[in-house]
Structures are given as structure tokens and as C-alpha cells.
């Protein structure tokens, strides 16, 4: 199967800053790829180069078999781009907004209106876009990117600034888009989002891709300890230290946590002693992968 996107050793310099520093990857048809990284990691610049908004200093980019730079009219109708929630014409209602964008792609108003229903904004059709909530505006923005039925969809931090409920609703929508067979590329700085939505995740920092793979493989490859916690007092701390000498034991007064690389043995020992009160087991997450890769705390949004 031909790759939908091919990126080969792309570099982009802004003055002294290496915004993108030798990035290579491929995205196959129908895949959901996440580019994960903190602000300033270079993920937006990478996306802009693929979309055709910027020219790479070095390297090669192919999108649907064509070069996106300079502005490629063959490519434009086949890709859908969601920028930010505020990228709307001023003082139009949700319906006028999507109809305007759809008409630029030669799409009839009726089809545009249907798209409004797909993203669950049918009842907000007459609301001015300025009055939509953050989540509604994001959904409208995505609807505007999808109205012309693109093969390839780019989403730049679609859930940033949304409350947990709105994020979950949007995740359902994004999964549906991908399930229809569209290739989706999304940037995010939320680890959980990447883990839940994406087939593969590229972890980026300082302009480089540090790791690329399925979320499960990335986490498994990490070889991070599993955290087994029980209620404090279920087993005395000293005894736990004695029993699990090669694990890391700590007690914060609420729960006693054993960080171990042999969780099965720890669990059976605890079960034998009937010390499973308040048990919880937490495996490694992408967050741990990121920490391990960069050797530092996750840099949050300023």
C-alpha cells in the first residue's frame, strides 16, 4: 500500500533555532498518527511543512504522491485542515460559516448542513460563531475541515483548552472520522489523548522524533516498573521491604506503593498474606515513556 505521507530527513531553521531537525516518517492510508510533544517541540512546524504552509530548508515531503510546496492546487481539495477554533469569518452563524467554507470547495449548502449534524451542532446552526463554547467551536472547526470529504485530515491540537467532557465527545468524533477510512494526523500535548486515539505516536522534542511506534509498543519497550499499591497498614512497611527487596517500597500514610518489575510475584505474595485491601495496579504510560526519553519532567504549556 502506498504511503499517504512520506517525510524524509526534513529540516527547518528559524535563525539559530532548529525547529525541525532531521525528521523522517511515513503515514500509511487510513492510519491515525499522533505527533506528541511539548510546545516548541517542532510538531506544528512539521505539520505546516506537510500541509504546504511552509517550505522545508532540507529534505523531501510527499503528500498523496505529490509535493505540497509550493501551494499545490491538486492537493488542496484532498486535504482537510483544522487550524484553531478561532479561525472563522467574523460575525457569521455556524451554518453560514460552514456553508462559506464548503462553497470554496464547490460543496453544496445541503451537504454542509449535514456536516453540522454529524458534529452535533445541528441545534446551534443559527448561533453566531463568537457565541459558541470552546468545544462547540472546535467541533465546528473540524466540520469545516471535513465538509468536502478529504482523504487526509490534519488536526492541530484539537482538544487544547477543552473541559474533560468536551474532550471525550471530541475523541468520539475523531475516532469516527478515522473509522470512515480517512488518514488522520493530529498534534497534541496530551499523553492520554495520543494513547487513546492514535494507531502510532511520534514523540517529538527539540525538533527531533525521539521515538515512533504504537502506544502499547512504546510503553512495553520502556521496561518501566509497575506500581502496585495497597492501603497503608495492610502490610507493615518494614515487612514489605524485607519481602520485596529488589523493589522500591514507599508509604505515604494513605497507601503503600511497591514499584516492581515482577508484578505477578508481588501480587501473589500479597494475596497469600491477605494484604490486598485497596489494591490498585498502575502500569507505565506514555508519560513515563516521555520522561524516560527526555530525562526530564514533561514541559507543560506556558
Amino acid at each position, binding site marked *: 500500500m502506498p504511503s499517504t505521507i512520506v517525510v524524509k530527513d526534513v529540516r527547518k531553521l528559524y535563525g539559530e533555532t532548529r525547529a525541525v531537525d532531521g525528521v523522517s516518517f511515513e503515514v500509511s492510508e487510513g492510519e491515525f498518527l499522533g505527533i506528541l510533544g511539548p510546545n516548541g517541540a517542532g510538531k506544528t512546524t512539521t505539520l505546516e511543512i506537510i500541509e504546504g504552509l511552509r517550505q522545508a530548508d532540507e529534505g523531501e515531503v510527499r503528500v498523496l504522491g505529490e509535493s505540497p510546496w509550493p501551494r499545490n492546487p491538486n492537493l488542496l481539495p484532498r486535504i482537510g485542515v483544522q*487550524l484553531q477554533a*478561532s479561525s472563522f469569518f467574523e460575525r*457569521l452563524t455556524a451554518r*453560514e460559516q460552514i456553508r462559506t*467554507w464548503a462553497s*470554496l470547495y464547490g460543496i453544496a449548502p445541503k451537504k454542509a448542513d449535514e456536516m453540522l449534524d454529524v458534529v452535533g451542532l445541528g441545534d446551534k446552526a443559527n448561533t453566531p460563531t463568537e457565541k459558541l463554547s470552546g468545544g462547540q467551536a472546535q467541533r465546528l472547526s473540524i466540520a469545516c475541515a471535513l465538509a468536502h470529504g478529504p482523504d487526509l485530515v490534519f488536526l492541530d491540537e484539537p482538544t487544547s483548552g477543552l473541559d474533560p467532557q468536551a474532550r471525550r465527545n471530541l475523541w468520539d468524533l475523531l475516532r469516527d472520522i478515522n473509522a470512515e477510512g480517512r488518514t488522520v494526523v493530529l498534534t497534541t500535548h496530551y499523553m492520554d489523548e495520543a494513547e487513546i486515539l492514535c494507531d502510532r505516536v511520534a514523540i517529538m522534542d527539540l525538533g527531533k522524533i525521539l521515538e515512533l511506534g504504537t502506544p502499547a509498543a512504546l510503553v512495553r519497550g520502556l521496561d518501566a516498573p509497575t506500581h502496585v499499591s495497597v492501603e497503608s497498614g495492610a502490610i507493615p512497611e518494614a515487612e514489605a521491604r524485607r519481602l520485596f527487596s529488589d523493589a522500591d517500597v514507599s508509604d505515604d500514610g494513605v497507601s503503600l506503593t511497591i514499584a516492581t518489575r515482577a508484578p505477578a510475584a508481588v501480587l501473589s505474595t500479597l494475596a497469600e498474606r491477605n494484604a490486598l485491601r485497596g489494591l490498585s495496579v498502575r502500569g507505565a504510560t506514555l508519560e513515563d515513556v516521555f520522561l524516560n526519553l527526555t530525562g526530564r519532567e514533561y514541559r507543560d504549556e506556558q
Partner: protein
Amino acid sequence: MSNSLNSLSRAMALGFVRDKTALFFTILFPLMFLVLFGGIFKDQTAPRSEVVQIGQVSLLDRIPPAERSQLDQVLQLEKTDDRAAALEKVRKGDADAAVEEVGQTIVLHYAAADQVKSGTVRGLFDSLVQYGNLAAAGVTKPAYSLETQQVEDESLKTIQYVTPGLLGWAIATGAMFGAALTLVTWRQKKVLRRLRLAPVSTATIAGARVGVSIAIALVQMAIFIGVALIPYFGLRLSAYWWMAIPLVGAGTLAFLAIGLLAGSFAKTAEAASAIANLIVLPMAFLSGAFFPLQGAPGWLQTISKALPLRHLVDGMQAVMVRGEGPASVLPQIGILLAFAVVVSVIAVSLFRWDDA
């Protein structure tokens, strides 16, 4: 293609119509000036001089009734015997002058505070004295006589002057702000970026803006002329007034180009407004949009000739109210179009799709 043009134009037009601030500043605000100027200076005639006569003044008392009524049109006489009170009135500015007769001499007391008024009164009494002398010498038919007529009044009543002037200012404001604010807010909100990723040409985007701005300018023109034509204001359009339509079109293009240039420099909508205001207000004053420039010094007239608004206002006055022929404004249209082309070329070279 035409579909894109239509929907983009519609989006821009709706955005404008729903923007109360933009509507106010492009239509209502200039219209307020038209109503004010047109109303205040509607019946502008020379005011009568108010003069206090102290005691008997034979020169005035002997004027026959027929000529008396003529004199009343320019002179309002009040008689008193209290000399001190009369002088006090002049000093306070309640009367323009006081007049008394001392022997054979007519003494006129005036305050120099308002030189125009005191000059008028002096001139008036000068001629009254001469007239009295001639009459005393038995001359009933003088060899020369002077009849004065104000020329400006005949050619351009206030409403005739301010309608094209204020309309020019309104059009300049509308087109400049339209272009500058669209460019800056679309760049800021990343609408331009999004448009760059849509299959729509820059010509279509620019075409939509030009079309909407020209439509707005023609609406401004219709409203202005409509209001000024109300009998209360009494605008009288001359035969080839419709030549103002192509003038307005060319003017809109020129001011769109300036707005585009302002929008290329500004980063925020506020900055764009400020820059546009800094350009349009001084230009309106220097172009004679608000008052005539006849009295202005030569160097100012020269600067004024370099401003597009001056040519728009001159052209509109020529065909709308001075009754000049259609071909008389072709140079103005040419200058405005040339201006539009030159400034557009500069603006396009400075154009940026986004802030980064």
C-alpha cells in the same frame, strides 16, 4: 470559482452589516457631520450690525423712509439718551458700536475685539457719511455706484460644498478600514492561513473585498445624496452627477490599496485602526473635505495635490454640484487609478500570510 467569489463576498458583507461599530463610522458618523454642517450653515447671510444711537444724530434721523427700510436690512438701530450706558454696551460686546453727533462730526465708538464686525460698522458709517455729504451738496445721482454680491453663495451653498467633501471622507474611511481590518483580523485569526489551504485563488479573495467595498461606497453615496436632497438641506445636483459613480469606484480602489498597505504593517486590529485614522483624518482636512482650501498657503495646496482624497473630492464637486461635463473628471479618475495601482504593488510586496 464564481461560487467562491459569491460566498466570500457574502461572508464579508454579512460581517460588515453585523458590525455596529463599522456601520456607525462608515455611514452614520459622516452623515451626522452632513446634517450638522448642512443645518448650521443653511441660511448663512451677513448678520446685521447692532448700533446704539446716542441722542439726536441728524444724519440717521433724516434718512427717508424708503431708504430707511433698505438700511434696516444691514443695520439695527437702538436709540438712547444715556451715553455712559451706551458705551458700556459696546464695551461688553452687546452692541457693535455706538454713534453720536458732536457738532458737525459723527463720532463712532466701537470695540476692536471683533474686527470683522467693527470693520463692517465702520465701512457702513463711512458710506452713510459720504451719502449724507453728497445729499448735502445736492447730488442726487452719483456718477459711480457700487453694488456688491457675494459670489460664493451663488456658486456653492454650504450643502453643495459639504456633500461631496464629506462623502469623499466617508468613502475613504470605509474602504481603508475595510481593507486594513479584514487583512489584519484574518491574519490574526488564521483565516488567511486556512484560505491558503483551500482551493481558492488570491484573486478571488481580493476580488470579493473590492466588490464588497465598492458596493458599500455606492450605498454611502446613495444615502448621502438622498439626505442632502431633502428640501430642508436643499442640495441641487448638476446634470452629470452620475459621473461621480466611476469616480467613487476609482476612489474606493485607491483607498483599499492604502488600507491594504496599513494592514501589512499593523499586527493587531487596534494598530490597524490607529494607522488608518492617522492617515484618513489629516488627509480629509488637507483635501478640503471639510472646508475650502482657497485661503490655505501655497505649500499646503501642493501637499494637498498629492493626496488621493483631494482628487476624489475635486472630481465629485465638479460633476455633482459645479455642473462640469463628464469628461472633466477623467484626469481625477486616472490619478486615483494610478494611485491604486502603485500602492497595491507596494502592499502586495509587503503581504504576509501569517504573523510568524
